[in-house]
């Protein structure tokens, strides 16, 4: 049962953020890029079967931009209000601390989902016009997976927003998190694999199972696996086709994404509960 302070706070977060110029700018950038990718993807394709590269392009776009939007919405969510001073007043009202976190998570998650829906909506229309046999269920799964990914980065940023004593530190760690999951972690994983199977193994695309297990530590990899497993044909932009091991299933991928969200929500409750305002 959702108590009403959660809804009140969620509503306030939406009201407060729809006027945030960065949210607007990033939404426009995301929507324009999905338009470009889907347009060029669809005019050169014969049909959905041949749509792999377009999906892959949209996936890269998502992996690049959605974490930025999630992190940006979350990094100041708690520390911003504490630094500003409005948290004292909010907490003096009859609300429990977990309700503040949940309210903010739902509100900011709503803004994030809205951004994603706009981008995917535009792309969906373009694809629908140009491609005859669109699999709409696949497309919905694609959107759902993207929202889950965005929520992970949102709650990650919110956690660090409750952890740190300064807004600037929280912002710094958010920038780091983006580089970490987009660049550093993949390089580390590939480095480990290269050290183990050599360059020839790497080029063959025949990756060992433990490597596939290892990459599941990165939610971005889990996301791309989930999309690849569901959304028709996906080939990577680089042209290397990767076959997944048997333990890769949609259920497992969704579970991992949910564990990230729920896990960090609990960590955020825990940390916020102990915090002096």
């Amino acid at each position: 049962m959702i108590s009403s302070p959660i809804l009140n706070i969620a509503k306030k977060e939406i009201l407060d953020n729809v006027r945030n110029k960065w949210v607007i700018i990033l939404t426009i950038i995301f929507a324009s890029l999905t338009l470009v990718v889907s347009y060029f993807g669809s005019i050169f394709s014969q049909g959905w079967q041949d749509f792999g590269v377009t999906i892959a392009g949209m996936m890269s776009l998502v992996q690049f931009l959605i974490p930025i939007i999630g992190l940006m919405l979350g990094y100041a969510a708690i520390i911003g209000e504490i630094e500003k001073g409005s948290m004292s007043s909010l907490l003096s009202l009859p609300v429990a601390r977990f309700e503040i976190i949940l309210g903010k998570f739902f509100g900011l998650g709503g803004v994030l989902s809205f951004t994603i829906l706009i981008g995917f909506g535009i792309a969906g229309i373009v694809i629908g016009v140009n491609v005859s046999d669109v699999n709409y269920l696949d497309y919905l799964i694609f959107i759902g997976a993207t929202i889950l990914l965005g929520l992970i980065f949102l709650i990650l940023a919110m956690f660090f927003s409750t952890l740190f004593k300064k807004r600037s530190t929280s912002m710094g760690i958010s920038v780091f998190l983006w580089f970490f999951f987009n660049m550093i972690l993949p390089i580390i994983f590939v480095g480990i694999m290269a050290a183990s199977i050599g360059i020839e193994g790497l080029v063959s695309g025949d990756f060992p199972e433990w490597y596939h297990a290892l990459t599941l530590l990165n939610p971005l990899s889990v996301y791309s696996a989930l999309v690849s497993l569901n959304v028709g044909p996906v080939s990577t932009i680089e042209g290397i086709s990767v076959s997944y091991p048997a333990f890769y299933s949609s259920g497992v991928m969704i579970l991992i994404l949910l564990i990230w969200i729920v896990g960090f929500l609990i960590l955020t409750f825990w940390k916020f509960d102990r915090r002096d305002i």
Partner: protein
Amino acid sequence: MISKVVKCPKCSYKTTVIGESGKKIIITCPKCNTKGNYLFPEEHQQLTKTSDSIAIEVNGLIKTFNGLRAVDNISFNVEKGEIFGFLGPNGAGKTTTIKAMLGLIHTNSGEIKINGYDIKPSGKDAKKFVGYLPERVAFYDNLTALQNLHFYAEIKKSSKEDCITLIEEFGLSDSVNKKVGTFSKGMVQRLGMARAILGSSPILILDEPSGGLDPRGVVLIRNKIREMKNKGTTIFISSHILSEIQEICDRVGIINKGVLVAQDTVSGLSKKLNLKPKITVELEKMSDDVVASVKKVKGVDKVEKIGKSIDVICDPKTKAKVILAIETAGGNIINLYTREPSLEEVFMRFTEVK
């Protein structure tokens, strides 16, 4: 009327008796017919003062920051309907105490109850009774004054219609639909007071309410505090300015370096402290006649001769009489100045006693 169970001293038969406290009755044991006197216990002021009459209860509060005790074992009660002034210099621990009272910070030890609800396990219930003005007032800058108050009204489950009236009452009629981000510090402070009063909570906790206000704002807020008091609101108000508190409070607590050094009614405190201004009168020529005639003035506590000037400690009201006495005695006044007792002196006096 109170009822008591009494035991017969002879046969140990228990029976219930009813009567007024302080009254003596003769009881006859229904079983063995022994007669005896029984005095109903006096209703002791302290004992019968159930927590029903206490709005805020703080007991043994300790809070340390990095090992330093910002609040050091503070205990006090605030009665329902009274204005309690919480007085202390900057850094004394006022804000820390208030934050602990609202559960904003975690304490090392101590118990805090608001209307009988413990702020730790039952924070949500306790906070239903409180309107709070923080030391650093802040709002959501992207939202208008009205949108902000609507948000707080929703969570307090109070009437949204009152928001506009409140904003207007605090002199912000022109800014109802302006973003709070464009407000001046004084306007934010006024809106903060409106937010504290929103929903007419029975307890108001105000942390330095006149901070950042112009004199007109100070008067506005002081009148509002009086108005709330007349409605029966309990008001806890912190300040580092003695005169600000003196006028409106029923009782004051004085905190210095985290320790509550005094707790009394304002008049009791003034008596204890002998809070009287010191008038220094510079004369053209010192004469013993002048000193003698000043000493004769009623209400003068102390006269001291220092070179060509005299220091007079007296009631503020006797100031004119003192000047008249000096002039009648032939004294020629060159200069005159009054010094109010500073808060620092007050704290010094209390800490000296300790």
